[in-house]
């Protein structure tokens, strides 16, 4: 019976992408945030001879592949809902309830619903608890000196958590040969090599052809109906372990000690350990670590059977190192949860690390302190065929990644970086060169900071979110990032408070590229935006890109193709709702409300400043409405007006 229910659940979750309904008018009443902003848009659209219904892209413009998310199809159909949707998701996952933080992401990947949660609870009562009793009865040497509010409850919670950890991997969906392909060959299409910049044109072509071949071989393996049971099982186990980890943490009190390398309890067979409150050193592939405090050092390798992993560190300034790829808060054909409760910590990962879910669920949750995160590729909140989350609740933090990080969504994946407060510094790039020279010069790839990426033309991208809730932050990327996406995905960056600085090179700050969606929303503060091109509300090739800044005195600098630029039938929308702002561009022919005339018709660039006294270096002027310069522009429009005092308090959060 249970099997049947699970099968039904699986079929339901694996149901193919739904048909695309027509745009109801009501959908647009939702997205404009305030009546003042709506007034501004009404004027701009009327002046440009456009209607709200014109803003639609076709989900079926390209054949819908097995990885296409329903959410992407919805948003592509109604791209104007992007800013509101992004804010809503940020609010939903930013609350205090830990489960609420993550379940929407599971939802996005089709791995979660209420029925799933009920199944999970059912499993806890039916199987996990008896197993925990059994483990507890066998473990007579369990220490009684654990600093806990309720030692008996702690013991029970600990063994319940241990019982949730699977004793073998979740690899049933694939044969050994297929697993070997997915694990050892396919990642070549994701990972870059700095050596490539020295290769000849023929060598680079053969690498490209090899990657195409690998991708074509990979596509049938990752059909949702194929691996769905495995993925649902991983998600179920992740939820159970995460819930029990939260319960366990509730029983503990922070403590400190001076005794080094004090092991209070260990089960070597199950790779589980409880470390004392002094400085400890953990090295290897642990399934469960509970560390009671102290400045600890972790040197972690990947779990050999890719199953589950939970690490809880209650305090101290800790150092975490991944000794290889797929280690350190990486769910890889399984799940991994790392919760660090306090202290100024250093996390140094390699590829696939620091809140990474690749065919699994990965969570890194740092609850306090000024922390440093360093990763290479697919890191710091990165998900592909699963979810990867990096959540930091406080402190002034530093995030550094090379590629595909800091809220990155790969195929059938959701990646999120959530930072609750503090003045943070985000940097991504600087390692792997972008050899096509799309920016007219050799720059570095970033693909980070609320970014999504798909394997064109075979598999659609996922969803990447970077949500920063407070603090004066600095964001820096090179090519692709800060609310940007490539190939049927969504990249969103939402920053709620603080005076922020956004620096990028190209395809950034609200840029949707090639049938994709990118949005940057900054709710408040006096912000500074700098990018060279195809940025700041820019949509290219049936993509939609939006930059919405809702209040504050802001400055925007760009060279070209920015500040509301539609290219190759894309939509670029720029909105500054309030404040006295400055706009500076170098190339007037494709900025500040410009749409180029590709494919015999055109693209839309819509620039709107709703209030304040503003300064322009470009086509725009304060209290004016303008059209971009022909012939490069056909359907661009810019409006700077006063559409009622746009009180930032009225603007949603």
């Amino acid at each position: 019976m249970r099997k049947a229910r699970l099968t039904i659940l699986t079929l339901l979750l694996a149901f193919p992408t739904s048909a695309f309904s027509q745009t109801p008018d009501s959908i647009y009443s939702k997205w404009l945030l305030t009546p003042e902003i709506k007034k501004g848009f009404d004027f701009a659209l009327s002046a440009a001879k456009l209607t709200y219904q014109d803003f639609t892209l076709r989900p079926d413009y390209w054949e819908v592949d097995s990885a296409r998310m329903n959410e992407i199809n919805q948003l592509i159909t109604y791209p104007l809902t992007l800013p509101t949707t992004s804010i809503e998701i940020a609010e939903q996952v930013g609350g205090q309830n830990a489960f609420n933080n993550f379940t929407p992401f599971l939802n996005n990947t089709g791995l979660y619903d209420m029925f799933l949660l009920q199944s999970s609870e059912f499993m806890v009562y039916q199987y996990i608890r008896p197993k925990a009793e059994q483990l507890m009865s066998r473990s007579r040497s369990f220490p009684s000196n654990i600093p806990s509010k309720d030692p008996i409850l702690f013991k029970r919670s600990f063994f319940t958590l241990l019982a949730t950890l699977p004793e073998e991997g979740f690899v049933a969906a694939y044969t050994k040969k297929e697993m070997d392909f997915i694990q050892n060959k396919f990642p070549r299409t994701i990972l870059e090599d700095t050596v490539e910049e020295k290769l000849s044109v023929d060598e680079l072509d053969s690498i490209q052809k090899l990657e195409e071949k690998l991708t074509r071989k990979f596509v049938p393996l990752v059909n949702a109906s194929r691996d769905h049971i495995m993925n649902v099982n991983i998600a179920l186990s992740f939820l159970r372990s995460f819930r029990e980890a939260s319960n366990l943490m509730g029983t503990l009190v922070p403590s400190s000690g001076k005794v080094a390398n004090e092991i209070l309890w260990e089960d070597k067979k199950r790779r589980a350990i409880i470390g004392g409150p002094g400085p400890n050193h953990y090295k290897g592939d642990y399934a469960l670590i509970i560390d009671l405090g102290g400045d600890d050092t972790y040197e972690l390798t990947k779990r050999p059977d890719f199953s589950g992993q939970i690490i809880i560190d209650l305090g101290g300034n800790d150092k975490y190192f991944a000794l290889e790829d797929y280690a350190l808060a990486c769910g890889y054909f399984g799940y991994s949860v790392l919760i660090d409760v306090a202290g100024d910590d250093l996390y140094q990962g390699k590829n696939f690390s620091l809140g990474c879910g690749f065919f699994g669920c990965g969570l890194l949750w740092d609850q306090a302190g000024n922390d440093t995160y360093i990763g290479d590729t697919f890191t710091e909140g990165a998900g592909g065929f699963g979810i990867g989350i990096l959540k930091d609740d406080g402190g002034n933090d530093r995030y550094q990644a090379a590629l595909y990080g800091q809220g990155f969504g790969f195929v059938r994946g959701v990646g999120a970086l959530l930072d609750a407060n503090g003045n943070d510094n985000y940097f991504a790039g600087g390692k792997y060169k972008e050899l096509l020279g799309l920016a007219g010069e050799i720059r570095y790839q970033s693909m980070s900071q609320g970014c999504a990426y798909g394997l064109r033309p075979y598999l659609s991208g996922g969803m990447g979110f970077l949500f920063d809730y407070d603090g004066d932050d600095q964001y820096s990327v090179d090519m692709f990032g800060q609310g940007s996406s490539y190939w049927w995905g969504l990249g969103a960056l939402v920053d709620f408070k603080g005076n922020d600085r956004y620096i990028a090179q190209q395809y950034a700050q609200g840029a949707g590229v090639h049938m994709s969606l990118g949005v940057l929303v900054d709710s408040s503060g006096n912000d500074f935006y700098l990018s060279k091109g195809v940025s700041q509300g820019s949509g290219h090739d049936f993509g939609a890109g939006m930059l919405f800044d809702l209040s504050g005195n802001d400055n925007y600098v760009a060279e070209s193709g920015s500040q509301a630029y539609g290219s190759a039938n894309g939509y670029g929308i720029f909105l500054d709702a309030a404040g006295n702002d400055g706009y500076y561009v170098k190339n007037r022919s494709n900025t500040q409300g410009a749409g180029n005339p590709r494919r015999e018709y055109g693209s839309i660039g819509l620039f709107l400043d709703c209030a304040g006294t503003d300064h322009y270096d470009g086509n725009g002027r304060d209290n004016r409405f303008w059209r971009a310069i022909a012939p490069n522009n056909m359907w661009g429009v810019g409006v700077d007006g006063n559409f009622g005092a746009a009180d930032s308090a009225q603007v949603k959060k």
Partner: protein
Amino acid sequence: MIRFLLALFLLTSSALAQTDTLRVKVDSLFIRASSGLLKYRALEEPSKKALREMPTAIPYLVEKLAIQDARERRELINILGKMPDAIMPVCSAALSPNKDIVKTACEILSAIRDTIKDGHAATPYLLKARMHPELQARGYAVFALGKWGGGGAKEALQEALADSVNFVRVEAAAGLGYLKVTATLPNLIQAFADDYYGVRFAAANSLIKFNNISLPYLYKALESENPMVRQLAAETLGKMRAPEAVAPLSRLLKSQLWTDRLAAMEALAEIDTPTARQLLSSHSEEEPLLKTRLEELTKK
């Protein structure tokens, strides 16, 4: 007998070797033409030129029509689109069941038309290709039909202008501008009321391509009950800079609807005759944004 077989083997081997050599050469040039790599950008144009000057490369290039890499596809269109000798193999490819081949073939046929001024060689193939279920294939076929014209093209484009897919309607509206059949002018005016901007704007561009022939239709459209139709007619007349349009536009300038007046103002400024300037300077607006816009247009 053995000698004969040996000779046959040598001849076949030699022919195959030549074929292989040519294929290797074409592939090598194509890699350079389409790599997109900044470091090797200087190789792109010479490689494209070399391929275009090599008619023997056509069969090998046509074999690449199924390419899915966007950059390679674009360069293939650039190369074959300037090789008039490729027309028949590409026409045949347009009938392929493979949607990728059909899309690329139709885009190439559009481009080739710029090098072949006479005849309608591609039309029968495009008429079949435009029935393709895949929307891009259908759209590109319809547009190419507009450029090639010939029997059945007009009806096909008129039908495509009513397609349920907006992309196909856009391509049909754009194609009609190349076809330039007067009987389709009412269809293009009707397209101003389409619920997708791309169709409206492609129709406006196409009407401009008809020059003075479309003027009476546009004057009539200025009196449409649909404001979008009126305003797009005004914009189109402005872009055509038709002095005769000043009088009908002056009536729109008196409309109660500010968007009508704005469209008329901008069109008159584009036409820029003394009468048009006179009309603008005697016109006034109250709404601040319209007022400043009028000031700018008058200064111009």
